Every structure is written in C-alpha cells, then in structure tokens.
C-alpha cells in the first residue's frame, strides 16, 4: 500500500524545471509547471542509464506536457511516463499532491494516469484510503 511522503516546498522548485528527489530508494524527478501542475517520474533515464530526467527541459508536444532527457533528448509524457518517440519505453510515474505549500509524492510508483485525467493532485490508488 502506498503512502504520501513529504518532499519539499513548492517554492523549492523552479517553474518549468525539474529537481531530483529521493523517496525511499527511488530516484524521482519532480516537475513544477508554470501553470501550476506538479508531476513526478522516475529520474532514471532508460536510454542513457543515468539519473538525469530531472535535468531535462520541460515543454509540450501538442497537448502533452513532456520532459526531454538532457542526454540523448528522448521526450517523456509527464502524465504517463511513456516515451513519445518510442512508446514501448515507459518510466515509472509517482502520484503528487500539494499539502499546505509542501509537495508530497507517493512512496512508490503508481499506475500511470490516463491521458486527460491527470491533475495537480492525482489520487493514490483506492486501497490507500484507510491510511490517510
């Protein structure tokens, strides 16, 4: 069962930029968009093998918010973790929410949100209800 883990202040993040975070043993890349949404993906770039997705450039392709790996530039959908140029590749997605100005992440990857339903605080999976 996953729980929320406190990570940092919203203000600790530069808008439209990512930052690395450690959640237990997971390397997570947390992104704050200038439009307010917070997203979190695994920080491990499957193409280069380095933990660098947090250092990529945030942008969009059509309506999809994305981050481009700084090493070989493959882009990943911030909502689903799916690689846009190679949809067979996906990085893990973590749930995010803002709680009193603090960013919280799920303590493990969650099933990716379906495109279009992601929001700034996507809910944790159902089985977590009692814990909150």
């Amino acid at each position, binding site marked *: 069962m996953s729980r929320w883990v406190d990570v940092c202040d919203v203000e600790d993040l530069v808008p439209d930029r990512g930052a690395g975070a450690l959640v237990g043993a997971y390397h997570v890349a947390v992104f704050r968009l*200038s439009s307010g949404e917070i997203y979190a993906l695994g920080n491990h770039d499957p193409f280069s093998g380095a933990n660098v997705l947090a250092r990529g450039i945030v942008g969009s392709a059509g309506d999809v918010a994305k981050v481009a790996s700084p090493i070989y530039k493959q882009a990943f959908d911030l909502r689903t973790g799916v690689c846009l140029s190679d949809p067979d590749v996906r990085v893990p997605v973590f749930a995010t929410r803002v709680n009193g100005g603090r960013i919280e992440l799920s303590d493990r990857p969650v099933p990716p949100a379906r495109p279009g339903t992601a929001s700034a605080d996507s809910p944790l999976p159902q089985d977590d209800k009692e814990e909150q």
Partner: protein
Amino acid sequence: MVGHKLVELITRDGGLERWRIVVFAEEKRLAYDRVGLSALFSGSTAEDLSLVADGAYDGVLVHLADPVVAVDREQRLVVSASGAEERYDALVLATGSYPFVPPVPGHDLPGCFVYRTVEDLERIREYAAGARVGAVVGGGLLGLEAANALLALGLETHVVEVAPRLMPLQVDDGGAAALAERIAELGVFVRAATQTTELEPGPDGGVRTMRFSEGTDLEVDLVVFSAGIRPRDELARTCGLKIGPRGGVVVDNACRTSDARIFAIGECALARDRTWGLVGPGYEMAEVVASQLTGSPDAPVEFTGADLSTKLKLMGVDVASFGDCFGEQESSRDVVLRDDVARVYKRLVLNTDTGRVAGGILVGDASAYQLLRLMAAGELPTPERPEQLLFPAQAGDAGPGILAMPEDTAVCSCNNVTKRVICAAIADGVSDVGGIKAATRAGTTCGGCVPLVTDLLNDELRKSGREVSNNLCEHFRHSRQELFDIMRLRRIGSFAELLAACGRGRGCEVCKPAVASMLASLGGGHILKGEQAGLQDTNDHFLANLQRDGTYSVVPRVPGGELTPDQLIAIGQVAKEFGLYTKITGGQRIDLFGARVEQLPAVWSRLIDAGMESGHAYGKALRTVKSCVGRTWCRYGVQDSTAMAIRLELRYRGLRAPHKIKSAVSGCARECAEAQSKDFGVIATERGWNLYVCGNGGMRPQHAELLASDLDDESLVRYIDRFLMFYIRTADRLERTATWLNKLEGGMSYLRSVVVDDVLEIGTELEADMERHVAGYECEWRGVVEDPDRRQLFRTFVNSPDPDPDIVRVSERGQMRPALPEERAAVTPVLVGSVR
C-alpha cells in the same frame, strides 16, 4: 517474436471481429525483442525489451508459461501443459528454435548454459558472479554475441570454434582474420579449428575442465553453448505433420503445413526448402498468414524468400555480409581491400558478365553496407566503378542512389519496410524520423537503416515542396532569424513574452534553448537570471558539460592557450581535491571530468580564487582562440600571434551564438594554429593580418575562406565584430558559420560586401552590438558562486544533500573514470523493489 507480430497484424486489420484469438506461450512473459537480448547486460531490463504496446492484447486470450503439449488434428484441439484445451479453426505454429547443444560428455553440468531467452541470460549473470573464466562453444554470430556478454560480465573470455575461422557462414578467411585480430584486441581468446570433446566437473560439481580434440585443455568456470539452432518442430512431429530431413515444419509458399488448417511461421518453419534464422523473414511469413486470416488486400499472400544479408556490430566491430558473399558463381571476380593497419577487410564480389555487384563482405567498416546490399539485390544500379565504394565516404558526397531506388526496395530489412511504405507515411504528413519509426516501425530494431531513412525523408520532403521547414519547432511558426528580429525590434526580454507574442504551447527542448541563446546575444544578463534559468539546456543550466553518467566536466578558460605555472598548479590541486579526471583538450586547454552537480559551485569557487573564469565549453558560444607561439619565440613568426589570440578570446568570451564559435591565430603562413579550420581564423603577414572565415573541423570539415588581407589590428577587430554579429543575427539554430555561408545567397562575395564594404549600412550598428556585449561581460560562474540562491540550484536531490549513489568510479591509468554498467553491478548493492 513472430507469433506476436502475427497477433499485431491480425488485430490491426480488424481480425478480432472474425477470429477469437488464443495465444499459448511457453515463456512467462509476452513477446520481447530477442534480437536485442544482449542489451540485458548493458543496463536494459526485460521490460525495456518488451515488444508489446499497451492494450495490444486487449480481446486476446493469453496463456503465459503454459506451453502446448499436444495437437489433436482430428478433433482440432490443442492441449496445454496445465491441461487447458482449446478448439481451433486455424492453428499457427510459431515455436521458434532451440539452441543446439553438442552431445559431448558433461554438456549438462552445472555452469553450462545456452543463450536464447531472458531467463538464460539471468541464469548466466547469476552464475558469472562467482566465476572468473568463461568459454563460448561456437564462434558464429550468436557465439560472438555471447562472448561479448561474458566479457561484459567481467570474465576472461574464450571462444572455441570447430571451423577453421570465426563466423564461417558469413565471412571468408580474410574477413575472419581481421575480425579475430580485432576481437583478440578486446581481450577475447579465440581458438578456431578446435573441437570440444569433453567437459569435466571440478570438486564443486560444476564444469571445470574443457578437453579439446588436439589434446589440450582449458580450465573454466562457465560455458555457453552457441553451436547453432534447430527448429522446434516437436509438436508438429508428434501430430504427424510433414517435417524436413534436417528438421523444420514443411510449409508451402502460403506458409501452410501438410494440414491446410495449420500454418507454421518463423524459425520453426521450413519454407522454400530452408529454415530462416532471422527475424525479418519471420515477420514476412507473419504477414503472409495474417493476410489470409483477415482477407486484408494489400498484404502479400506468398512468402517469396528473404534477403539473408546481415550487418552487425559485434563487440564494437562492424561485420556485414550480403548477396553472394563467397563469390560462388562462375563469372564472379573479387575486389579486395585489406588494410592491416586499420584492420579493415572488404571484399566486393562482381559479376563479370553483368558488371554488377553480386555480394560482399565488410569487416571493420561497414558504412557502405546498405548501398552495396541494395546493388547486390539488384535494387540499385551498380555505378561505373563500384570498387570506389570500398573506400570511406568523402565529405560532400551526396548519398548516391536514394532517388534511384525503386519503390519496392526494402529500406528496413529487419521490419521489411519498403521505400513505398515510408514515402506513403511522409505523404500522410510525417515529417521526422521519430514519426516514421512510429508509423512504419522502420528503424526500430537494429537501427542500421536510420541513415537511409533520414536521407529518404529529407529528399521526399524537399521533393513534395514541403521545403524542410525552417520553423523553429511546433511552438513557433518562424525561423530563428525572424524570431531574432522580432525580439530585437520589439525589445522582447523573456520567453513568456515571446510565446505570448507569436508562439503557442509550452515550448520545448528545441525553442527554449534557442530563445535563451538569443536573449543572451541581445544582452539579457546572467543566463540563470529568473525565468531564463528554466530555458537552458542542461549544459547551460549547470554551466558545465553533461557526461554519460550524469556528472559534469569543468573547463576553465585559458585564453590563447597561455597558462602560468601557478594556474597549472591550481588546476591540478582542484582536480586532486575533488577526484576529477584531467585531460588536455583539442582546444589548448584542460578539461576536468566527473564533477557531481553538487560539487560544481565548490570546484568553481576554488578555480575563481585562483584567477580563472568560465571557459563556456558548455555553451553555444565562443570556445577557444588557439594560438601558436609566434614572433616572440619562433624564428619564423612575423607577428605576435599569442597576444592577438588572447586579445580576441577576451573580447569575444561569453558571446552566445547559434552554434559554437572557434578561432585561432597563427604567427606566419606555416599555420601551426590551424586558423583555416576555424569559424574565424587569423594568419599573420609581413604587413598585418589575413582574416579567414567560415571554416570548421568536426563532422564535415570545410576550409575557411579569405575575407580580407593585410589588416592592421583595429581593422581586424572591427571586421570580426561585424562578421560575428551578422552571423548571430541571421543564422539558423545550430548552424555553424560554414553551413550558414554555404546557404547565404551570394556566398563569400556577398558576405565581404556586408562586412568590408558595408553595403547594408549596418556596420556601426553591428559594432555597437558587440561593444555592448564586451562591456556587459561577466564570468557566469562568478555570478553563481557569489549568489546563494543560484548556488541552491546545484544539488542532486531537493530533499537530501547526498550525492547520487549510482555514480560509481573505477580507477584506470592512475585516474578515475565512470564504471561500466557491469563494473557498477559488481559494486552497487541491488535494492529490492527499487526501480533504479
């Protein structure tokens, strides 16, 4: 793989409306890319190899890890190991092959493996942890791949081949010799013409001694058998289908077995009198069957055979063979290029009757493979002097023949994608290689065809008048030059303003850094100021060059290459203190590699205290102005080239441009500083300086051209000011000066009229722009080190001061370097449940 392809094709063509599909799989996971199996040893996971897109099996019933054990043809029933039964109207066997293990005594001892499935590799990896020496039995294509894997696992690796040479099926003696030499250099021990007669266990019961026919033996800890594959035809045999003399389920050209309701495809099938051990022909068979099951009109209804040409990179060595590679026809004659220095071997087989390329073998450099293969297949005309294709491509050669290729040419042989299909995708609006991959799957397997696909794409776009668009990206319908003018004239000072004025969306990794660079060229202040920080590419964002493992390199500026002993000592001390790898660069300065993000400010603080400043190695900006010693020391020097180089480097340091800018100053015509290969280069004359512009080395070397001669110091600087600012205003994103000049209408004489004769009357404006840059320059690193808020950006984790534990170093030649994946695996503990 082939079975999965079939399911994909049937679902794509609406087959789920007609058929209820049931898949039985022996392995415990859905289809994965067996061709890329070895990637498991270079950091990929089994999930990375999956071939299955989300939802691909919606509506399909799958029994995983439950092989079919019997087929009852009378009742049209299959029975699985777990006892599940399914009736069928059509049955497709896509059972692949199994690795053949020669029945030598001891072949089944613990420590003996094959190389076929994810699980095989996992077992090898596990066993190798306690092993030191590994041997591969079989020096064919797969055997060498397995040997590479053992090497990657850190084992002393031996390859034992019965035939007198490696890869006996693909290359000849000459090719095998070049290959063996290169492979030996990588540390692999090759024993050809050697038969393994027996394996004996050691005291622990695991394999220990290999005995060979010639009476020698070898102590090993682990053995991988890769002595060929055999079709898995056991089901077909037991239910009485016709089997070939050497195995394989006999099928007709429609891939039907001797029972019309049963098909066989992929490696288990014996089609056109042979089995096919590559994925491409298997996929073609899947298409043949899919078209019969769905009635889809455009797919082929007959398996016509396939090209068995192969190109691989084995242990970093290119190996290719195509067509009639052994010259078996009466009329064939060879052209052989054997370069024992570069260890390259190329053999071209020509048919003397027709004058055409018939086949060939390439080892060490297979860059000409795609074209030669197409010529051998008769899909491209053979040029007049085909032997010239054996020499490495010269800069400026246009890829011959793409236009000449007929529509049915298979551009991507892995996925059997023809030129027609790719062109159709382009006509449907696809405009980049990524789009072609997604739409056609061309280029998604071995990647070998991507250069060809790219050429085809550019060519088609140009032909269809969709002039390879000069829009910056999907967010701006303007070229870089247009945006630059908009920003300059409307005094736009931020990305947000520009987006509001003439863009849409959120921007991306193309337009953001381009706009950041233009803001910097227009005097936008520190590149990490406010919103600008978010725009920068990681190199500019961290003011350092990102390396493959996520660390950075640090390059202090060394104007003109002149360095005092104290500065040298200071650089050495910093490197020592932070454990950085040091190297003299090709640009007359010193690079310090391997600094972690959170170390960068401290490293720079030390360097700045020692009087150094940013070298902008990370920026599309002035890099270096190289110098020679010049008149001061050199007996031939006619001017003080070192002083001029330093003056120029200090003047233009930090100048942001569409691409990097390099320069050099030589003290006489002997040109030791290589000024004629630079974006702007200066050569001393008796009377002053000659100014050359628009040269570069790199991917497409081009000599700089003379812009003006015998200039005094001040005119030299004035012309360079104008030249650079004109380039910055008008060039496209990532366009070096040479490319820019090549596209500039009127070429060098137009450029000269602008810079020297000032026909546009913008000379003073351009000089003023440059003066503003010079006056506004400050060291970007000083601006970070002295600003606590900016220093804050330099950390690995927002919620922890720790370094990235995945960055692992090993020592080599007295310095540190990044650990290779397998070395890293040896020292990093694996966290259960971690996704790292």
